[in-house]
């Protein structure tokens, strides 16, 4: 039996977490751990509803860490014998994923789960990503109060979007007080809701219309920026001085890359003691000056202009060609957390309106 729609009362959230916890890990936004600033959250495994913290602002770090962790041991070795890292076998149920983050998973699947879209493109199935991604259930939580830094509707997203989600949860009234409306998007979502049907009550016939009205109201809070033609203009502006202008104050700190839901560059290092060691994968960032440093000492991207150009063109041009989509989902984290308040929306506008195009 599968179930399309149901209401989850706030008091039943804890029971849901306990039920899920029997066979899976339940991840949701929660405080960052001891210390840290209040209201700044990350996705963590929870064992009770009281640990959950659903703030107006999205989590600091995106949901990508659930499938592509900052640090992952790939294998261990000793005296020539290689042992694969133990498999991650607990399925993940991730709750409270904003639609911008859920949509980012569609892109990450193209990178790591063998789903490129350009014909003839090499696909790659990353076993480390896939073991966590397979069997995962993504329960998106719709956004009713987009921030001033959010711009999902300008890049083909929506605060009530369902791309990448198995279930869309949305408020019926006040968050934390009134029930959540759960609507299945995929078969996986339907099966999940059926499995936990005992905790859900039927939604009224007017529920979809009410949700549509809330969705429209949420979207209306964000101006839609016109990014049309940005790819073509950027492609023609590779040598333009516009990239110098927009990148001048960049610190190369990498925060934008680390908080971004679609940035996926990584480094692989071996940590050894004698003949024993482990091979690990960690996040990397093309904004670091050393990112493209060759062993010869040559650096094809020695200047900030080249690195910022890479960042913007990768998201707004190259992935359109290789993956059929702009890989920015407008979550706004880079805007919120850049120490020098670089704003990708302003940078795109500068490129688009740049009078001095190709030289």
């Amino acid at each position, binding site marked *: 039996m599968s179930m399309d729609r149901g209401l989850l009362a706030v008091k039943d959230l804890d029971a849901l977490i306990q039920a899920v916890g029997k066979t899976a890990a339940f991840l949701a936004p929660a405080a*960052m*751990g*001891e*210390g*840290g*600033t*209040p*209201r*700044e959250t990350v996705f963590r495994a929870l064992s009770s509803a009281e640990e959950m913290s659903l*703030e*107006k*602002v999205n989590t*600091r*770090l995106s949901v990508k860490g659930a499938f592509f962790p*900052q*640090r992952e041991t790939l294998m261990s070795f000793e005296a020539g014998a290689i042992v694969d890292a133990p498999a991650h076998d607990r399925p993940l149920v991730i709750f409270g994923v904003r639609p911008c983050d859920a949509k980012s998973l569609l892109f990450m699947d193209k990178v790591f789960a063998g789903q490129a879209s350009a014909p003839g493109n090499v696909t790659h199935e990353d076993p480390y990503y896939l073991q966590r991604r397979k069997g995962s259930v993504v329960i998106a939580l719709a956004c009713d109060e987009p*921030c*001033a*830094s959010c711009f999902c509707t300008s890049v083909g997203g929506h605060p009530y979007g369902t791309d990448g989600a198995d279930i869309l949860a949305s408020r019926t009234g006040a968050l934390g007080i009134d029930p959540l409306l759960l609507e299945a998007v995929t078969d996986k979502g339907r099966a999940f809701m059926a499995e936990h049907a005992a905790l859900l009550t039927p939604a009224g016939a007017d529920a979809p219309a009410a949700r549509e009205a809330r969705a429209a109201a949420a979207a209306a809070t964000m101006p839609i920026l016109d990014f049309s033609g940005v790819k073509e203009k950027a492609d023609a502006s590779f040598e333009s001085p516009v990239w110098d202008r927009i990148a*001048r*104050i960049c*610190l*190369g*700190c*990498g*925060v934008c*890359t*680390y*908080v971004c839901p679609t940035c996926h560059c990584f*480094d692989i*290092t071996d*940590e050894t003691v004698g003949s024993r060691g482990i091979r*690990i994968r*960690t*996040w990397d*960032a093309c904004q*670091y*000056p*050393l990112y493209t440093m060759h062993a010869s000492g040559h650096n094809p991207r020695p200047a900030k202009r080249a690195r910022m150009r890479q960042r913007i063109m990768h998201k707004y041009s190259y992935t359109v060609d290789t993956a059929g989509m702009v890989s920015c989902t407008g979550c706004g984290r880079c*805007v*919120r*957390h850049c*120490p*020098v*308040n*670089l*704003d990708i*929306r*302003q940078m795109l506008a500068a490129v688009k309106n740049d009078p001095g195009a190709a030289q």
Partner: protein
Amino acid sequence: MRDLANDIRMIAKDLFDQKRLDTLVGFEKGSAGARCRPVLIASAAEARSLAWDATCSNNLAVYLPFLFQRPPQRKGAEIPLPKVGFVVKGCDLRSIVALVKEKQAPRENLVLIGVPCRGMVDERKLAAAIDGAEIASLEDGDEKIAAALADGRSVSLGREEMLQDACLTCQQPVPEGVDVLIEGEARPVGDNGDSLVKSFAALAVSERWMRFQQEISRCIRCYACRQACPTCYCKECFAEMNSPAWIGVSTELTDAMIFHLIRIFHQAGRCVECDACMRACPMGIDLRTFTKKIAADVRELFGFTPGFDLETPPPLVTFTEDDSQEFITEPHKT
């Protein structure tokens, strides 16, 4: 209350008109939460965009090494170094002085516009005070800051309560030794956050270690702290060397702790306690307690605080006979 932004704009325009500058580093209006952000301008016309308000907390000295770096020059055909202007608060200037002493730029190539500082707003305190609401605009006043919120509400906040901790205890709010000093009010001199360091130092070593571990456990090795710090400018940071690999690159706690220990120790005698590292950290790590502890140790051992004076040599590159020998004679003293 004077509009310092106007003075800054006029002085900057004059400097460019007199051809005394190639580049000026200052602040302009930003885009997020009504804050200012750094800007590098290269002409009198661009001076119009310069701004100054209670959100100019970035330490602009971070751009100095980048502006003066260049490849080795052919002898006899050296391209002259640029002439760079900086709009400086006390903290920016102390970092610039430290960099000049480390030969990152000659003083004669710098034009320093000093701004007396009343203290800059802490974005996190602001967010907490308005319960995470969005700010459309901020107006700085003498005792209050008026915040117009995105949802239409107006809130009046006590200015002192919103300031950065570094600003509340600042001992050098008026930059000295600048080329042009803007006329304006400065906040009263503070005690440099002595009590914070004392209360940390009073903890048992094991407790201090636990505190340090607890904070660093959130580190994601993004290096924002390093990149935001004006006195971290090594072309190749020890943390990224792989031959030899001094530390691992991952979030493994021991690697993260050693990264921070070494980075902060490398700042000894150079750190001006501006908290740029802490502001940049996306995980809200309390780096301030640790950077200030090192700075306090340097004060105690060498009687030195990085200040405005270009003549005093940095303590860790000089030796005097009365330097403390306790690390040899009393190694177990904590």
